[in-house]
């Protein structure tokens, strides 16, 4: 079967429901156009039945879903630098831990006092105080940011 140049005319006539006698005559003599008519009419009837049977989601619902999606996307964008900084800090801690472990292993775990010369009570105590202050500040800062986010409605309260 060869393709016919008038197939688009047949499709258009079928969609509009406007047939000329000449086109009907052509349809009877052209196998390609008859096939087009058969497939197109079946699909069009099916599409029409689908339209009658199914309710569409309301426009409001789609609008709201889109808004929520956009806000989530914006939140993700806003959080990206924080996530990056957290990863960097984890990397630094891990790197430091590996370095300490390596140095201890190299010294045979016996010379740790030389490796960490400040391992006396005073120095350890000062370092401990420093770490405690840092942790306290991190906690207060995190609490403040979360509290502020909840108040402004960006993040839902637990």
């Amino acid at each position, binding site marked *: 079967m060869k*393709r016919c140049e008038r197939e*688009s005319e047949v499709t258009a006539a079928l969609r509009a429901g406007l047939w000329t006698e000449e086109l009907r005559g052509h349809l009877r003599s052209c196998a390609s156009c008859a096939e*087009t008519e058969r497939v197109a009419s079946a699909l069009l009837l099916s*599409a029409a039945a689908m339209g009658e*049977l199914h309710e569409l989601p309301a*426009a409001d619902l*789609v609008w709201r879903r889109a808004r929520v999606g*956009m*806000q989530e996307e*914006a939140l993700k964008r806003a959080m990206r630098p924080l996530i990056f900084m957290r990863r960097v800090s984890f990397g630094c801690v891990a790197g430091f831990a590996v370095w300490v472990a390596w140095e201890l292993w190299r010294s045979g775990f016996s010379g740790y006092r030389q490796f960490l010369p400040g391992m006396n009570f005073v120095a350890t105590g000062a370092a401990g105080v420093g770490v405690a202050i840092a942790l306290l500040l991190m906690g207060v800062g995190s609490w403040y940011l979360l509290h502020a986010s909840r108040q402004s409605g960006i993040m839902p309260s637990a």
Partner: protein
Amino acid sequence: MRVHKTEALTAPIAWADEEADAMDEQEFRRLYDATARPIFAYLMGVSGRRDVADDLLQETYCRILARRVLPMEESEARRYLFRVATNLLRDRWRRGEDARWAEPAEEGFLPDANMQLDVRVAMRALKPRERELLWLAYVEGMNHAEIAAATGLSAMSIRLLLFRARRKAAALLRPDEVKR
């Protein structure tokens, strides 16, 4: 008005809100009312499942809003929507989620609508791309260039692909008549 100290941190969210407000909800509603039904029928006809059509329909409009391409001419928006819907269908097929077609009763099809069942059987037997081409050409009445724009295929190949898809569909709809 109370200005919060963490405003700088939440600024991107505020910008998103402003941009969303800049989009006219009435404009969206008008576009949705004018185009949602053919898009839904396309998704339903090609995927064969109502739940998928519902979900992808919403996703299609969410994408068009998120990309902030509105406002545009209705015909242009329609073509764009078909393109997005086609891409979303392709994503499903790539994930292998096209295996199951819902049974007619499950989708609320009329049990005595033999023609409709024939069409479903034929569509199910066709490849996803063939379903797309047939629907866009015969239900939407798109020309080859428009089909190419909606599917991402080359305009030159549409003619041949559509011819083959039509032959296959015709054989599936009325096997005995097509043998001649």
